């Protein structure tokens, strides 16, 4: 197909940007990334989540998550009237293929996506006997797969159930906040795949990040605040029934 000069001029800058990202697709280190410039978190908007499971599928493909285990998952809540102490919750295969209708009527119903909260005071890194799981300077909790003993103390210590034991690698495993992506200026796989913007990566150290304006104007919560984990995944519209 022949392009006119005008078309080339329009396409060129776009092609440059695309080329940068094509390069980013090749396995290499992230040369221009400075850890101390960032403090990562995530914003989850319950009012927007439609339970499609795109995030769960995207994560499992991006990170080769084994079947039956979840780095992220979606829960569906049904709350009858004022009985927030007694919700009905389900998560069929982590919500990977969405949620079939469960015949629930009435009450309050909503979806809650969950993932590692990348706690700033994480109980999981506290208990690791060898330093195989740790905080980075930019606030991401990671696992060193070549150092982990597989003692599973960290899995016991996580209050949110976000860790599991990798059946093939025999080490602990969990969400890495797609560190290999965010260190290259991309967003996480789950946020990329989310069609409604219910999941948004947040750089709390970046003054221009929209999360700051959002936090100022919305009531947000973290999960299990009484455990003082310093969780950095913020939920908008989180109901009191959420466990």
């Amino acid at each position, binding site marked *: 197909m022949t392009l006119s000069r005008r078309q080339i001029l329009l396409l060129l800058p776009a*092609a440059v940007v695309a080329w940068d990202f094509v390069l980013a697709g090749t396995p*290499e280190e992230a040369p221009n990334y400075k850890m101390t410039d960032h403090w990562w978190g995530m914003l989850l908007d319950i009012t927007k989540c439609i339970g499609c499971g795109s995030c769960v599928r995207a994560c499992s493909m991006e990170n080769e998550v084994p079947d039956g285990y979840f780095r992220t998952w979606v829960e569906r809540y049904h709350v009858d009237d004022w009985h927030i102490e007694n919700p009905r919750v389900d998560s069929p295969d982590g919500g990977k293929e969405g949620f079939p209708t469960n015949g629930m009527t009435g009450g309050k119903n909503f979806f809650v996506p969950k993932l590692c909260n990348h706690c700033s005071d994480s109980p999981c890194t506290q208990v690791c006997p060898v330093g195989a799981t740790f905080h980075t300077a930019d606030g991401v909790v990671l696992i060193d797969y*070549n150092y982990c003993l597989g003692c599973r103390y960290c899995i016991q210590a996580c209050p949110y159930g976000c860790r599991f034991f990798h059946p093939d690698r025999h080490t602990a495993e969990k969400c890495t906040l797609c560190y290999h992506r965010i260190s290259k200026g991309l967003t996480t796989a789950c946020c990329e795949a989310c069609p409604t913007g219910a999941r948004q990566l947040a750089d709390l150290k970046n003054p221009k990040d929209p999360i700051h304006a959002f936090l100022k104007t919305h009531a947000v919560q973290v999960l299990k605040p009484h455990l003082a984990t310093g969780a950095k995944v913020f939920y908008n519209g989180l109901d009191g029934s959420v466990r």
Partner: protein
Amino acid sequence: MNGFRDSAHLIPIAALFLLGAVAFVALRAAVIPKSFGRYGPYRGDALQEITSRPLVYAGHEACEGCHPDVLEIKAKGVHAHVNCESCHGPLAKHADDPASVIPVKPDVATLCVRCHSENIAKPSGFPQVNAKEHTQGQPCNTCHQPHSPGFDPGGKK
């Protein structure tokens, strides 16, 4: 003098302990990975290992670079903020080398239904339908263009 001789048997024990301590220190120097402690109480090389994982999703900006025409259509409709790979699946390999990987068109029957089939737990303002009744067996893109899904009974583009 007698006292010392009577305690002399404790010296080999003390020596063994000392030897053990020295061996421990030497072992540590030899075996602990060199990058341990570089950034914190963990193996510094782990960060490189983690960041060098291959990308599976290219990210929407990579798609938009080569497909500005689709971007233009999408930007005008309600799917403006639905990223390409959300429907088309992970395509970093295609972005790397477009000719080598031809993306397969997603199956409309499963794809659209996953988001849009009605469910009491979905936010009430979100467009949702009873799939069977609404489609009457027809594929969704008979009337809706996926990149800009207004209602268009005229057919797919």
